[in-house]
């Protein structure tokens, strides 16, 4: 182990339930508990919420990328019948303060602009009216006078901008919000000793999650009755009161956030704090409950969830025999107009930046640049999808420069099965894995060698067919140090270190088990997962469990589904709750059976005497007796009525970053592995890519529900295909966002998906989580772009086209082919 990692000691495992064969419910493709109500139209999404007296809001949005607001005239809008109020940023500032910012020092963002706008779509005024139609009519009557300022669109130009082109002259004298350098291990030495240094300039352009449901809020304010009551489709409802209480000028306890079923997130609804503050402020100003649901255009232009937009200058140091020794890069990231989560997306990427390879050191300079675009937020992968692609592009580049087979070179550098837990140069660990097995499985499933020969033969006939393979990491179960570990050491900001997940379990006198969750359903399967784990641990039937969601006042700790954490974390909470409940069940049950607690066990939903088949008490009877017949039990508080328990599970394995940032600590250690292989054909005349064959093998440790995991892999792969081949946010030179709609931002339809997708799983359990479960919510998007880029490059190898920028939409790819052809003839 490198000297710089010596102080980063791996804590002992807190695993209580060992991974094992012969489980009853864990590992079954059980139908989802959530589905019947959703399928029948009774899910209850944010726009389904209605409260008495509710009014509706519509926004007046900026048509300009960068402009001063000279004046706003709301008189005509206010005069429209049905309008309750029209409010500007100055009005809003009388009831709310700026949005919270994880950037340190922060960058000021008002939920409604004051003084100037910094991107197209930024809200400058809002109408509250009796219905949405009237509100939108009135919004069109608001007149704004603008003074146009220079728009920053290009990442490198914006970094050098001055004067009127500065986005936040009051906070920063430059559009560079952060510029930090890190060195983990002997980077300089490794590069000095390298036989070959492979260099590439790589570009990853912005897109976003675009869940089919947009963000929305229903907010009420009552100064005499507890403050704000807010319905929101945020992923994070038990945490945000603490983040936004300050902005709303109330204590977190005066904010009741009620969750709803959420129509997809993929990161885009992680916080949703701006829309909550905005709508809550309107409710307070208007004195009525207010509903605001973004329309699609507003979701594209103002929802603060654009994905990474990065320019890398990357270098890989390679020894003569092909060993990768060090990786370093400078990365500029176009964060848009604000920096809500600091450079958390780069912190995230530090979890697995060196991929599945034994790379000894890593260095980075990260430059966060502000431009006049909608600001970034999370999107499936949260920055690691980009570094996976960078690492895999560099591995392919190294193979090419050294005349090596790309797969053999990868295998040579891979971490071996006996090296786990493996600490990478940044200090994060990979808990377990068998990358070789995943690769072998994927190759055989795909008939990799056969396909390579076939593709070669097809190329010889003049067709552009190629095969690409990627071996990538899928970190899961995030620790929050990723949000701040790359901040300047002097101003690290809010150095949060907790990500707990809680659960309440109550055995009702009727024998039903009532479970309260503290994180919402966003398309994952929180109820199904909990049903399977509690059924397993307590020997009950999943259909005897009934689910509820807390709100932020009635609830307990919960951090929500993100960073592929929920399944592993809630499994921990379920085990903790089950241990406590088992103890109580045995105490009451043993008394009813006139035995000692140590002589009984849980068996098929009963407390039963060990070794005997006919002496048992069903849980229902125990719950009934303990709830209604107190005098049947001895005195003493251990026999207090009822069977209920609340439990919390903290992150299973994390350490602090080193004071001097020589390493970042362990923060994302439950790590899966994926191998994607794809065959494509490119039409050189149009630049269109057709997927001919696709195989993906994922190792997410012990699988709780193979079918729902497969659904995650499929869905993530569809996102990755879109990211690679069709999805691109196009801004013109004036900062106009030219394609913010579903017609021109081309997300894959069923027609764009591979016809014969083959999916395999390898199970290498985690030694740190309950039952060995790892998260698996992001893998598809973490692997598909790399495999596809490789395949397209292979398909166009005779044309000499290199894939160094994504996406490669047909016009972009056609342009690359044309440039290569012209280069060849010139």
């Amino acid at each position, binding site marked *: 182990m490198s000297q710089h990692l010596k102080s980063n000691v791996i804590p002992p495992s807190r695993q209580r339930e060992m991974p094992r064969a012969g489980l009853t419910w864990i590992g079954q*493709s059980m*139908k*989802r508990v*959530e*589905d*019947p109500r*959703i*399928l*029948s*139209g*009774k*899910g*209850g*999404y944010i*726009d*389904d919420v209605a409260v008495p007296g509710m009014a509706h809001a519509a926004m007046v949005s900026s048509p300009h990328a960068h402009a001063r607001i000279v004046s706003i005239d709301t008189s005509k809008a206010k005069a429209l019948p049905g309008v309750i109020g029209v409010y500007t940023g100055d009005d809003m500032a009388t009831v709310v303060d700026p949005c919270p910012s994880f950037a340190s020092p922060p960058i000021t963002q008002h939920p409604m602009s004051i003084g100037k706008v910094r991107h197209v779509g930024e809200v400058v005024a809002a109408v509250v009216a009796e219905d*949405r*139609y009237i509100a939108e009519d009135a919004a069109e009557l608001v007149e704004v006078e603008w003074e146009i300022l220079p728009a920053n669109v290009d990442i490198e130009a914006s970094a050098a901008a001055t004067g009127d082109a500065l986005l936040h002259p009051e906070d920063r004298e430059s559009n560079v919000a952060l510029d930090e350098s890190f060195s983990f291990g002997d980077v300089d030495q490794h590069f000095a000793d390298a036989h070959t240094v492979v260099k590439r300039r790589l570009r990853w352009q912005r897109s976003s*999650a*675009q*869940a*089919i*449901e*947009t963000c929305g809020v229903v907010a009420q304010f009552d100064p005499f009755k507890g403050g704000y009551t807010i319905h929101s489709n945020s992923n994070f409802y038990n945490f945000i009161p603490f983040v936004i209480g300050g902005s709303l000028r109330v204590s977190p306890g005066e904010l009741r956030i009620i969750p709803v*079923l*959420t*129509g*997809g*997130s*993929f990161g885009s609804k992680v916080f949703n704090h701006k829309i909550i503050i905005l709508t809550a402020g309107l409710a307070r100003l208007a004195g009525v409950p207010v509903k605001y649901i973004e*329309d*699609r255009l507003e979701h594209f232009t103002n929802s603060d969830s654009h994905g990474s937009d990065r320019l890398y200058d990357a270098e890989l140091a390679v020894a003569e025999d092909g060993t990768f020794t060090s990786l370093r890069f400078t990365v500029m990231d176009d964060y848009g107009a604000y920096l809500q989560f600091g450079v958390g997306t780069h912190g995230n990427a530090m979890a697995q930046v060196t991929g599945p390879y034994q790379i000894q050191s890593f260095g980075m300079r990260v430059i966060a640049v502000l431009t006049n675009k909608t600001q970034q937020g999370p999107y499936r992968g949260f920055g690691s999808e980009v570094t996976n692609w960078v690492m895999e592009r560099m591995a392919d580049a190294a193979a090419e420069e050294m005349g090596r087979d790309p797969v053999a070179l990868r295998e040579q550098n891979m971490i071996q099965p006996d090296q786990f837990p493996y600490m990478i140069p940044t200090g994060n660990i990979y808990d377990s894995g068998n990358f070789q097995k995943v690769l072998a499985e994927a190759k055989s499933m795909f008939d990799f060698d056969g396909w390579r020969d076939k593709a070669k033969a097809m190329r010889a006939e003049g067709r552009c067919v190629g095969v690409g393979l990627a071996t990538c990491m899928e970190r899961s179960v995030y620790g929050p140090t990723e949000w701040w570990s790359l901040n300047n050491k002097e101003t690290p900001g809010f150095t949060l270190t907790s990500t707990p997940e809680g659960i309440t379990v109550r055995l009702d006198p009727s024998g039903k088990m009532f479970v309260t969750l503290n994180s919402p359903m*966003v*398309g*994952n399967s929180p109820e199904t997962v909990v049903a399977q784990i509690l059924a397993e641990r307590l020997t009950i039937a999943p259909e005897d469990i009934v689910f509820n969601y807390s709100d932020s006042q009635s609830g307990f700790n919960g951090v929500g589904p993100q960073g592929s954490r929920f399944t592993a974390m809630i499994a921990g909470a379920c085990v903790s709750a089950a241990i406590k409940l088992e103890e109580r069940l045995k105490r009451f049950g043993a008394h009813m059976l006139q035995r000692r607690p140590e002589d009984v066990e849980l068996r098929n939903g009963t407390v039963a005497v060990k070794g005997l088949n006919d002496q048992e008490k069903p849980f229902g009877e125990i719950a009934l007796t303990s709830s209604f017949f107190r005098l049947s039990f001895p005195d003493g508080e251990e026999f207090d009525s009822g069977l209920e328990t609340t439990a919390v599970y903290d992150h299973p394995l994390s350490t602090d970053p080193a004071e001097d940032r020589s390493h970042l600590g362990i923060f994302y250690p439950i790590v899966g592995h994926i191998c994607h292989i794809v065959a494509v054909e490119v039409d050189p005349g149009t630049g269109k890519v057709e997927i001919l064959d696709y195989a993906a093998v994922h190792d997410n440790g012990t699988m709780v529900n193979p*079918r*729902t995991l*497969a*659904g995650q892999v*499929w*869905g*993530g*792969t*569809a*996102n990755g295909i879109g990211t690679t081949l069709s999805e691109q946010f196009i801004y013109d030179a004036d900062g106009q966002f030219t394609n913010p*709609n*579903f*017609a021109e931002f081309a*997300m894959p*339809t*069923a*027609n764009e*998906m591979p*016809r014969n*997708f083959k999916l395999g799983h390898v199970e290498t359990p985690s030694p740190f989580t309950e039952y060995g479960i790892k998260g698996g919510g992001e893998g*598809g998007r973490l692997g598909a772009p790399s495999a596809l880029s490789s395949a397209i490059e292979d398909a166009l190898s005779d044309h000499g086209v290199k894939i160094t920028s994504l996406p490669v939409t047909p016009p972009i790819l056609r342009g690359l082919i044309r440039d290569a052809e012209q280069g060849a003839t010139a």
Partner: protein
Amino acid sequence: MTKVSIEVNVNGRTRHATVPPRMLLSDFIRHELSLPGTHVGCEHGVCGSCNVVVDGRAVRSCLMFAVQAEGAEITTVEGLAQGDDLHPIQQAFWEEHGLQCGFCTPGMLATAQELLAQNPDPSDDEIREAISGNLCRCTGYEFIISAIRSAAAKLRERESETTLQPV
């Protein structure tokens, strides 16, 4: 704005209402009739999550005014289940894991109803083609295709059971 009286049959029940002529059918169904199962994803006719079945055809309710539905027979997702039983298409979506967040699902179900009424035994490519106007951001479509395939088989079976019944 002058309101217009309309009469539509929704899920087997006749509904009378007075609506502004510009009210979208999607808003009418969701907010006036309190049937929130029909979802609105884009309001510009691309995503298909607002699809409902109008006179046997799956249509975008965000691209129609409520007044245009005068006299029509409409089925929304709420009209699919019979009593305590999910409709075979809903059942198939459940069994095959054809939904994750469920936001696109009512629209997919409407499209599937139209397809299977016209083509009781569609090939995978025909299913793919039929749902290519419905965006789903969660599933990657594969299990939606399996669900519709399985729904087709269920409906064919139900059909043959009913036709075989002694008169």
